[in-house]
């Protein structure tokens, strides 16, 4: 009985550690969706690209880890913002379908570029924390890397919360997401806010990629699965709600760990999609999202 409890707690702890990374991915997706109503299918590939930048800075340029991570986040942010200025804004096609298709195209471009620059082989990102070193709390075992990534994940979420809720830039971002035209009329530089949002969202993805790299190893397709999980988390929490994305990510991580532990490891990844479809059918606005309404 005690052992059963310990096992349950163990699954929850593992789930929370993974879930914090899903939450980071989900936050990037939600941040962009809230502001521009674009579902960015290139999010995962932007993140992979950023992780490979970090890898290059660490191995070829021998930068220290913190500097390399920072460099990677900045580069990815610039790529994201550049994409907004160079493609999304001037594009002729402005329907929803068109924008989704454009981000799909960007996903392919980034994936192709990553393959050409770094090849398809798997690589190891030198990471300062180890997954062999573990902490024991009673019967529950936590690896150093899980603690580290959970802490960094929470810190980033906190920083994002402060940015969006308690700064002038955040206020502008919220205004743009509520009503772009009204924000523009009030003198908010909408274009720059959009670019900033693209940059921030991309950087969040890159952060998630770097934190995931020790677990998944580096290859051009590494972010596909976490990206889809991030989507599932965003839908679960409500695709226009940032707290929803955080809660959804953690919840999805825990649910997945429990499902993997008690039901079936093989179908663990399928669970995320069952959750998506169930949520979309029962409560399309998600756990914390606002009501799913449409103007006619």
């Amino acid at each position: 009985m005690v052992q059963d409890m310990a096992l349950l707690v163990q699954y929850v702890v593992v789930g929370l550690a993974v879930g914090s990374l899903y939450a980071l991915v989900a936050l990037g997706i939600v941040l962009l969706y809230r502001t521009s109503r674009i579902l960015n299918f290139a999010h995962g590939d932007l993140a992979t690209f950023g992780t490979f930048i970090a890898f290059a800075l660490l191995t070829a340029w021998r930068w220290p880890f913190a500097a390399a991570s920072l460099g990677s986040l900045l580069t990815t942010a610039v790529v994201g913002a550049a994409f907004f200025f160079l493609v999304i804004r001037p594009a002729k096609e402005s329907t929803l379908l068109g924008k989704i298709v454009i981000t799909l195209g960007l996903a392919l471009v980034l994936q192709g570029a990553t393959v050409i620059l770094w090849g398809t082989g798997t690589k190891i990102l030198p990471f300062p924390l180890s997954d062999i070193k573990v902490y024991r709390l009673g019967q529950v075992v936590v690896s150093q890397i899980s603690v580290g990534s959970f802490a960094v994940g929470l810190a980033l979420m906190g920083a994002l919360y402060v940015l969006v809720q308690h700064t002038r830039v955040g206020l502008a971002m919220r205004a743009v997401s509520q009503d772009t035209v009204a924000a523009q009329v009030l003198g908010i530089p909408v274009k720059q806010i959009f670019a900033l949002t693209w940059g921030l969202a991309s950087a969040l993805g890159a952060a998630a990629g770097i934190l995931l790299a020790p677990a998944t190893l580096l290859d051009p397709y590494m972010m596909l699965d976490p990206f889809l999980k991030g989507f599932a988390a965003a839908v679960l929490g409500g695709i226009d709600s940032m707290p929803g994305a955080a809660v959804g990510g953690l919840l999805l991580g825990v649910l997945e760990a429990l499902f993997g532990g008690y039901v079936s490891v093989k179908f663990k990844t399928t669970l995320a999609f069952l959750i998506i479809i169930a949520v979309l059918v029962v409560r399309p606005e998600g756990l914390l999202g606002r009501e799913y309404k449409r103007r006619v």
Partner: protein
Amino acid sequence: MELRQRYEEDLTLVRGVLGWSALLALLAFLALLPALAPGYFLYTASLVAVHVVIAVGLNLLVGYTGQISLGHAGFVAVGAYAAGVLATRLHVPWPGAMLGGGIAAAFFGFLVGIPALRLTGPYLTIATLGFGIAVNQVLTNWEQLSGGRTGLFLPKLAIAGVRLRDHHIYYLFAGLAAALVWIATNLVRSHVGRAFVAIRDSDIAAEVMGVNLTVYKTLAFAVSAFYAGIGGAMLAYLLGYLEPQLFTLFESIYYFSMIVIGGLGTIPGSILGAILLTILPQQLAGLKQYLPLVYGATIVLVMAVEPLGIYGRWLRIKLWFKTWPF
């Protein structure tokens, strides 16, 4: 613009001397292809037929009805595996297996169409994406059905006990594709096609005008999935074996690229896209690693410059010559 006085004249698909000679030239080219082209090209030509069927089906859903599907490889997989299981376990002959593949996929299309009634835009995109990946994962993990990593081997195509050679398969597939394209062309000209377009342009307005959304949205999914299923069954017989890795998210995006590059909401566009995106990768086999980059850049370029794709550009060129010198 010639004057049309009778309804039948308005209904005809092929018009005038120019139309008939173009059609005859096309048919002659298709019929003589095995004699002209090198042997390996027949395989590519059969693959083109498969992709034409899938792309036309996908365009009925995405281009005409406006319901985005990023999980079309899932429907193709259902059709392929249904045909494969029917042919290997139940020893159904190939016409039955192909039809069975189409019907199985149509059933799944109907199932996916039900939640689609409540979902629009990005939500539907995610749901179909999830469907495609779920199908792939179920196939990978359900080894009794899919044969796991060893794959599922299909019997060779044969008519009355005689094994079909490469050029027979080509004629068979080209015929099937032509028939399905002809059906689709007529479908989009009928009241069903007009209902699809009305839903794409504004589903609320369509409902107000008396289009039953429940019926037509699920119908669009079912018909599109039927095409995908038939395409999948054709693919299964063409390759002779099946493995889950043939039906990944990349394939879904690949089919999607065909209709976007060819032209959304047009049948000729789907065909052009399918031809281009089948032959191009075969010819660029040495540059395989550049393919995603090329596809991606082309998609972005098409959407940024000419949202109606190659066919849209062709229509503009035609219009320019028709109205010249104005």
